[in-house]
């Protein structure tokens, strides 16, 4: 079976760009490193567009041309599946990712490690593309891990900072915990079905006949998604991952990495929806994460940190949506979120760039509207999109999820209300604090300036997406449901609906109003209140106790390893083994002392030995 040329391009372009970059540019011309990468992004983007067009017209590609691990009786294949879901993801990744590449070309211009940055950055991009086009679980795991690796390299990009090193380790380790889930799911799947059936297209139709072990697979895949998509309680790595350069955060939050978990769940939904209690649990975890991190986002000062918690919150929304069975809506939200969150991050990058910092806190900003107006406009558009205000893109996707939540009622509905309110509140709080209000003069005084076209041009296109992508819901639905593997068809994305519009818009408006009052009218109230009740402030800082628990857990593992590796293994067990030589020496001394040298003594021994021999006769 031949591989379509477009699919070849998806891999060939990034791989050749990476090889060319590493072997030719890295030493000689690192400052040109972004060009092959951007070129590769263009190729991939074109390939993705053509694939999407093909899929849109109903031509699904599913080929397994290679064997990765072949044995005569057991083998893992390597192939590609391009159906609606992967086409959507592919478009998102290639488009947003490509634009962020361009942006990064400007943002990282003066970094001494420019070349290394783009190599890792493009590897990240490649991994994500590989992830979304995988046609079986094992191959997906390969790219899943490579995504983790590249995020490790990028979060720790400024490895000179201890915090960056720590954050990168934390991200990798937390993901690794999730990977246990993925790995176990793989093992169980291959245990239940023949290995070849890790291919989705063969696997999903078999599920009805599967054993109860399949529910374990569902739960383990969910664990993997929790870690990758930063759901409670494994979310804490994502805010810390802000240590990387801003384009990295943008890419990670918008297009790659965290979306991988949502993608995994969407991909496995035919499996996960069969597992008893799992969808409800997913919804609950998602809702809790959304609300929980929304609250924390509303209390943070660092711009990127606010956005990070906001991402966690929105991932929670997507998970919530998935749990409610709204797969298409959740994926749609993934796409719109990709655009507006990328826009927000790049705006935050612009702010940091303007202030010549790697990241900025709300204490250092304020009144930036006049200094960098273009960024301010972009930010505002993205913020409206995030809040879910009609007719911005965020409205369409979020509303579909919230609508389903309201329909479900009960705790889901309540969570929906809270989410709508909180998102609007924290993002507008950030917007007001950053762009409006008084400009606090810094020491030494800096001269904020607008970023160059290399940064603003891609930003513009992303903002355009954040504004208008929501208008193509119907087309999106047609695309994403093409080649859907689930037994039941996808739920259609609802169109414009006055009832839910009223509910969500009113909550969002309420949030915006609250944010305005909180920051502009009574700015002191926020800080005064938190200063007077230190416990609350501490609670916010500690993510309500999650951070100390993580620290305690880390310490526990370290202590355990010390106990085993040093106290037990080296000191006790090996010490005991080594003490055998001392025993032997003691024994040698006593044996040796038997040979007293006196003739009579040795003759006594003769008698003893002879006696024993003779006694033996009696038996």
């Amino acid at each position: 079976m031949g591989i379509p040329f477009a699919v070849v391009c998806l891999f060939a372009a990034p791989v050749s760009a990476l090889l060319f970059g590493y072997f030719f540019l890295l030493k000689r011309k690192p400052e040109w490193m972004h060009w092959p990468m951007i070129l590769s992004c263009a190729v991939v983007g074109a390939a993705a567009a053509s694939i999407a067009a093909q899929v849109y017209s109903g031509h699904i590609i599913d080929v397994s041309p290679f064997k990765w691990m072949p044995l005569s009786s057991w083998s893992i294949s390597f192939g590609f599946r391009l159906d609606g879901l992967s086409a959507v993801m592919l478009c998102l990744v290639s488009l947003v990712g490509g634009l962020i590449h361009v942006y990064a070309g400007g943002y990282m211009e003066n970094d001494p490690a420019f070349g290394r940055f783009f190599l890792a950055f493009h590897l990240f991009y490649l991994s994500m593309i590989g992830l979304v086009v995988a046609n079986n679980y094992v191959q997906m795991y390969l790219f899943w891990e490579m995504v983790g690796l590249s995020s490790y390299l990028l979060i720790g990009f400024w490895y000179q900072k201890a915090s960056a090193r720590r954050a990168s380790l934390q991200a990798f380790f937390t993901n690794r915990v999730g990977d246990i889930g993925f790995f176990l799911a793989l093992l169980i799947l291959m245990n239940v079905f023949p290995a070849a059936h890790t291919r989705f297209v063969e696997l999903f139709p078999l599920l009805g006949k599967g054993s109860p072990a399949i529910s374990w697979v569902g739960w383990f895949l969910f664990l993997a998604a929790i870690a990758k998509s930063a759901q409670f309680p494994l979310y804490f790595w994502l805010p810390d991952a802000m240590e990387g350069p801003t384009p990295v955060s943008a890419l990670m939050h918008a297009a790659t990495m965290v979306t991988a978990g949502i993608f995994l769940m969407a991909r496995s939904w035919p499996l996960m929806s069969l597992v008893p209690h799992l969808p409800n649990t997913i919804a609950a975890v998602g809702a809790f994460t959304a609300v929980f991190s929304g609250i924390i986002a509303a209390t943070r000062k660092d711009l990127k940190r606010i956005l990070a918690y906001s991402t966690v919150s929105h991932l929670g929304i997507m998970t919530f949506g998935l749990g409610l069975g709204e797969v298409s809506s959740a994926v749609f939200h993934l796409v719109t979120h990709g655009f507006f969150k990328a826009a927000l991050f790049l705006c935050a990058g612009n702010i940091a760039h303007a202030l010549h910092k790697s990241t900025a806190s709300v204490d250092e900003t304020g009144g930036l509207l006049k200094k960098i107006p273009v960024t301010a406009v972009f930010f505002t558009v993205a913020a409206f999109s995030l809040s879910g205000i009609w007719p911005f893109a965020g409205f369409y996707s979020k509303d579909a999820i919230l609508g389903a939540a309201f329909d479900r009622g009960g705790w889901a509905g309540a969570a929906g209300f809270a989410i709508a309110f909180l998102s609007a509140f924290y993002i507008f709080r950030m917007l007001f604090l950053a762009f409006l209000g008084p400009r606090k003069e810094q020491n030494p005084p800096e001269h904020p300036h607008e970023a160059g076209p290399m940064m603003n041009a891609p930003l513009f296109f992303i903002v355009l997406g954040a504004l208008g992508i929501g208008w193509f819901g119907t087309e999106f639905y047609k695309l994403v449901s093409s080649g859907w593997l689930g037994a039941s068809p996808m739920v259609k994305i609802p169109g414009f609906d006055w009832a839910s519009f009223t509910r969500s818009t009113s909550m969002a408006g309420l949030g915006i109003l609250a944010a305005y009052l909180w920051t502009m009218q009574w700015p002191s109230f926020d800080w005064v209140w938190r200063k007077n009740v230190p416990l609350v402030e501490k609670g916010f800082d500690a993510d309500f106790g999650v951070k100390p628990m993580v620290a305690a857990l880390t310490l526990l593992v370290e202590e355990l390893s010390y106990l085993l590796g040093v106290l037990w293994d080296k000191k006790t067990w090996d010490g005991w083994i080594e003490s055998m030589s001392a025993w032997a020496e003691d024994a040698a001394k006593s044996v040796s002392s038997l040979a007293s040298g006196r003739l009579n003594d040795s003759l006594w021994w003769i008698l003893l030995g002879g006696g024993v021999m003779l006694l033996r006769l009696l038996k």
Partner: protein
Amino acid sequence: MNYLAWQISAALFVSGLCAVILRKQLLVMLFGLEIMISAALIALVAQASSFQDSNGLAAALIILCVAAAEAVVGLSLILHLRKNKTLPDTDALMNLKG
């Protein structure tokens, strides 16, 4: 079986053994050794006579010669160690040990 001869022989053997093990004077130990050999010979001879077997008697003679040779060797070794007209005991022979 000549029980009397065997009893005498056993008593002699044990007393010889006691002499060898318990006494420290080398010469006395050598005597003990000879007593042990003699004890065995007595048993042999007694048995041979009760079997009416000349082979046994001849063997006893040969063994007697061998025992004599042994005594010669022992005596020569012991007498060589004599110093100031005192004969050595095992206390003096504790140089090699451990």
